[in-house]
């Protein structure tokens, strides 16, 4: 059975149930149960060997709708609202004429609703739009399955408490699309948190963003898809076989995925041509400039600094200005980079509640090394290692300190 195909059908099956009058929360549970049953049976593809043909896709979708609808009825039959729902069954519309793309789009907005916390929105999106099981999502985020199940049902309760459940709206309609930025933020989070367990979250984020871009023509959706593709293209070279980090300048560019880069650049260029710049397009432009350089020394740092200036205008995010300082250090020399870093400190003094800006010390260490002050650089690398947000970075920074200390002691 083709699990990817099965999962891609989940949002449209969910749409059919909602259209038939099931409320979102119950329909979503029912679809999840049908999905688990299909995975358990492992023979949900009714015509093996031709799983990609339109015929068998319709069969598989029909099977899922039937099973999910039965699960929904089983769950609600015992309910107090039994009579009302059985009325619904009788007036159940014929499946098949469902504009699936439109409904899937509305699902994205519902699952990324602003009333949800980011972690809830991520979990709900992965389940309702991505067609992952609760167990897979729990494994990916390293939490117990029961915890993830609770997170998802609380998210659905939040939606209905806030009156955004589709059941409260005209029958068969999902919540109207809100701010696309909330949807993009959720997809960005899924992508950026990497992956663990047997589900590749980065690849899943690319798939979901691709599906969104196909349904919704918006330059920032395209920008995010381009950004993901351009970063995904470098993934295999970002870590050494022993798990240690490989910095951009040292990555084996011959192993970058040129197909993904070409696709990302093409999508980005089409988006930029619309002249409605946003932060994801600007970030993608920076990633594209890195991808364009056949060797690290040939990177067009001057243009990268310009894109960081654009990005800083769009977001006023200290992380952006920190990365800009790195780019300035490459374009105009380490002294200029250190000056940009000092300007960043002046404009955003470390607030006690948020602590120091992550990676600021690591950037300072790098710029001091490039400036030839190995002693300061070694001290700062060791300090940066103490502040590192993950083990891979900590080990990397400790190695940098060790490398310089070894040179200094010779």
């Amino acid at each position, binding site marked *: 059975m083709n699990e990817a195909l099965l999962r891609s059908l989940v949002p449209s099956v969910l749409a059919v149930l909602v259209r038939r009058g099931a409320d979102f929360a119950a329909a979503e549970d029912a679809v999840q149960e049908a999905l688990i049953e299909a995975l358990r049976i492992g023979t949900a593809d009714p015509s093996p060997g031709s799983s990609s043909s339109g015929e068998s896709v319709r069969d598989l979708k029909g099977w899922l709708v039937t099973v999910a609808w039965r699960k929904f009825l089983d769950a609600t039959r015992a309910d107090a609202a039994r009579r009302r729902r059985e009325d619904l069954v009788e007036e159940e519309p014929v499946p098949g004429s469902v504009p699936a793309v439109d409904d899937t789009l509305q699902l994205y907005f519902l699952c990324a609703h602003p009333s949800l916390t980011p972690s809830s929105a991520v979990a709900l999106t992965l389940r309702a739009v991505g067609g992952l099981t609760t167990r897979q999502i729990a494994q990916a985020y390293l939490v117990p399955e029961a915890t993830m199940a609770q997170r998802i049902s609380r998210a659905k309760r939040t939606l209905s408490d806030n009156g955004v459940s589709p059941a409260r709206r005209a029958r068969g309609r999902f919540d109207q699309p809100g701010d696309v930025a909330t949807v993009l933020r959720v997809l960005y989070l899924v992508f950026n948190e990497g992956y663990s367990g047997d589900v590749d979250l980065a690849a899943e984020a690319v798939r979901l963003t691709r599906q969104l871009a196909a349904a919704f023509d918006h330059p920032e959706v395209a920008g995010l898809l381009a950004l993901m593709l351009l970063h995904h293209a470098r993934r295999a070279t970002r870590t050494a076989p*022993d798990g*240690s980090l490989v910095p951009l300048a040292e990555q084996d560019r011959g192993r970058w995925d040129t197909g993904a880069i070409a696709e990302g650049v093409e999508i980005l260029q089409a988006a930029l041509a619309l002249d409605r710049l946003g932060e994801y397009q600007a970030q993608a432009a920076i990633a594209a400039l890195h991808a364009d350089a056949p060797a690290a020394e040939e990177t067009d740092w001057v243009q990268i600094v310009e894109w960081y200036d654009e990005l800083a205008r769009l977001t006023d995010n200290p992380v952006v200005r920190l990365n800009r300082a790195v780019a300035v250090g490459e374009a105009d020399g380490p002294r200029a980079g250190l000056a940009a870093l000092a300007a960043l400190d002046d404009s955003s003094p470390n607030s006690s509640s948020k602590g120091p800006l992550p990676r600021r010390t690591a950037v300072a260490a790098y710029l001091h090394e490039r400036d030839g002050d190995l002693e300061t650089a070694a001290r700062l690398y*060791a300090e940066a*290692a*103490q502040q590192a947000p993950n083990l891979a970075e*900590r*080990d990397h920074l400790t190695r940098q300190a060790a490398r310089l200390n070894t040179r200094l002691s010779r």
Partner: protein
Amino acid sequence: MAKYLLLKHYRGAPAAVNDVPMDKWTPEEISAHVKYMQDFAARLEGTGEFVDGQALAPEGTWVRYEGEGRPPVTDGPFAETKDLIAGWMVIDVDSYERAVELAGELSAAPGAGGKPIHEWLELRPFLTEPPTITE
């Protein structure tokens, strides 16, 4: 079967035999150390004795309830705190002897000069559910 917590300390443990801070090792020695730790965890997974392992950032915050309707008080990190946990590993083994054996292996992880660190690790048994048969 019995569960044990293996605690590694940033501070508070007696000094190791080969006590050199990591940034004074060579990069190759660091790689050898990291590999040893990874191999150790992988081997325990292979024997069915590994439960969980996590590393902690060196600095945290102390938090205390401050009364109804008030936000909790936060303080620290305190430089004078004697004990500072660096990370843990939970193992599920047949006996205390096996737990000691494994802790000893972990303490033999290579450090400066490629020689074992001989780091002191703390071994703490879990308080578990009472057994069914007690008489």
